[in-house]
């Protein structure tokens, strides 16, 4: 049997988490095929074919797949799944929208955000906002799962897998893409950045958030993150939220500025290699997970830090 990975892309770029999902898939020691569905996916298909560990790339190409719905993707994946005993993707808003729908139609369970693959059907995943690790066994004939990219190394390129076109069913009725709005940024993507600078409620305003956090992030070529409190207060856009209900990051360096470190936030960053916390409150929870803590007024020390770099 083989493993099927669902590739995520935005039409121009592959999501770099795909290369990590390919590494995760090697645990089954069986051929790994990657499905890419899009309006003009040929260039991206070639990029996938170059990733080591890929057996073949399945290409579903159709103008209607410019902005595919979960329903359309499900209609493509479910018939293919008969040939596979593992269907997986990197955990993201995209895959967690699509794969449960696929699993239900295959009448199998799904495991979300798997941290570790122990054997062919036993996994470790976080529950209760990552405060507990559960070891879970799934006896279903088809294993459907999403994996946390940061737990797996990215597969290198340099290979040449076979590329095959596959038939594409017509887009189902009932659901239609209308529009998308992305927060444009020159910064690295939050989930891929080596350094993340995150701001919390203590910044006090959107202006202060931008004036204090952005220059430091610029110096460090870092992505900017935010706590839920900062997002809810309107200091930063939603998609910068790090935590249980936002994104999970594991950069080499995570700098938490004015963040208390509630369990929901810690969930999203506690696997970072080095955590630095800057907070005025010496009792803040964030100091319990920080490697280096500085109790100080962020409005003084963050500009100092920026200047010293």
């Amino acid at each position, binding site marked *: 049997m083989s493993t099927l990975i669902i590739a995520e892309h935005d039409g121009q770029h592959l999501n770099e988490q795909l290369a990590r999902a390919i590494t995760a898939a090697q645990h089954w020691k069986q051929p790994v095929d990657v499905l890419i569905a899009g309006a003009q996916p040929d260039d991206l298909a070639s990029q996938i074919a170059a990733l080591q560990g890929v057996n073949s790339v399945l290409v579903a190409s159709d103008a209607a797949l410019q902005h595919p719905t*979960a329903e359309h993707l499900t209609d493509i994946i479910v018939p293919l799944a008969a040939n596979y005993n593992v269907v997986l993707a990197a955990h993201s808003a995209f895959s967690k929208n699509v794969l449960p729908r696929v699993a239900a139609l295959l009448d199998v369970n799904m495991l979300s955000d798997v941290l570790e693959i122990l054997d062919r059907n036993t996994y470790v995943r976080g529950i209760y906002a990552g405060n507990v690790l*559960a070891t879970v066994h799934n006896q*279903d004939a088809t294993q459907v799962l999403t994996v946390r990219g940061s737990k797996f190394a990215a597969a290198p390129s340099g290979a040449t897998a076979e590329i095959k076109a596959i038939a594409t069913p017509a887009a189902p009725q*009932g659901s239609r893409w209308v529009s998308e709005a992305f927060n444009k940024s020159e910064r690295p993507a939050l989930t891929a950045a080596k350094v993340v600078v995150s701001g919390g409620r203590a910044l006090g305003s959107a202006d202060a958030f931008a004036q204090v956090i952005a220059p430091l992030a610029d110096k460090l070529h870092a992505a900017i993150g935010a706590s839920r409190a900062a997002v809810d207060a309107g200091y930063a856009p939603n998609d910068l939220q790090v935590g249980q209900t936002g994104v999970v990051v594991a950069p080499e360096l995570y700098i938490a500025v004015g963040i208390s470190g509630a*369990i929901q936030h810690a969930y999203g960053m506690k696997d970072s290699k080095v955590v630095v916390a800057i907070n005025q409150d010496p009792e803040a929870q964030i100091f319990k997970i920080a490697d280096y803590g500085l109790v100080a007024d962020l409005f003084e*020390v963050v500009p100092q830090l920026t200047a010293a770099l």
Partner: protein
Amino acid sequence: MKALIAIKRVVDYNIQVRVKADGSNVDIDGVKMGINPFDENAIEEAIRLKEKGIVSEIVAVTIGGAANQDILRHALAMGADRAMLIETQETLHSLGVAKVLKAVVEREQPNLILLGKQAIDDDAGQTGQMLAALLKLPQATYASQITIEGNQATVVREIDGGTQTLAVSLPAVITADLRLNEPRYVKLPNLMMARKKPLENVPLDSLNISLSHNVQQLKVATPPARPAGVMVKDVNELLSKLRTHEGILG
């Protein structure tokens, strides 16, 4: 139109759960329980749609033991019209929950099915999508804005890096993000009134659903704690630690 809201009773989101000494499960004996926060967003949205005259009846449903009646009363006190407890002592995973909810949807024939985007205990985030699949209905997950006109819902969804807008025809399954709304507080008189609203107990066995038990939790553990960190006195010491001890920042 009729709205069906599926809700779950979970450990209160402020509580850090502990693992039982034998590692068999988390210890939730005597721990404060409440309605899953995302499900509260789903109820609030249904109530707002009713206040706009779009929704005419709100039915709240949950699955579990008798203790789950408390979250149904909470939903009724917020503004749901009636509630249904699908009674079972079994622990169901997302697929099982979706199968049970499918039977409820077939019985109730709602136009709008609202759930939270994930439960904060199992963090699976699957039930809404699975339910939509089983019912062969459109789905709109992680909704931060819902606009209904006729039999069409326009839903703004939170996605990585921004938002996406979908148009789905009703009936559809929509899952609520935290940003969808600010759930209202329950006032005491409403809590009193909620006691008089209908709450039906339906034994799971009476729904004739075959549930598989293919997923088993073998054990649970506390994640390894990060080693204790050090406090630095100023920016220079911080930079020196990062550079010399960690070898980062050049």
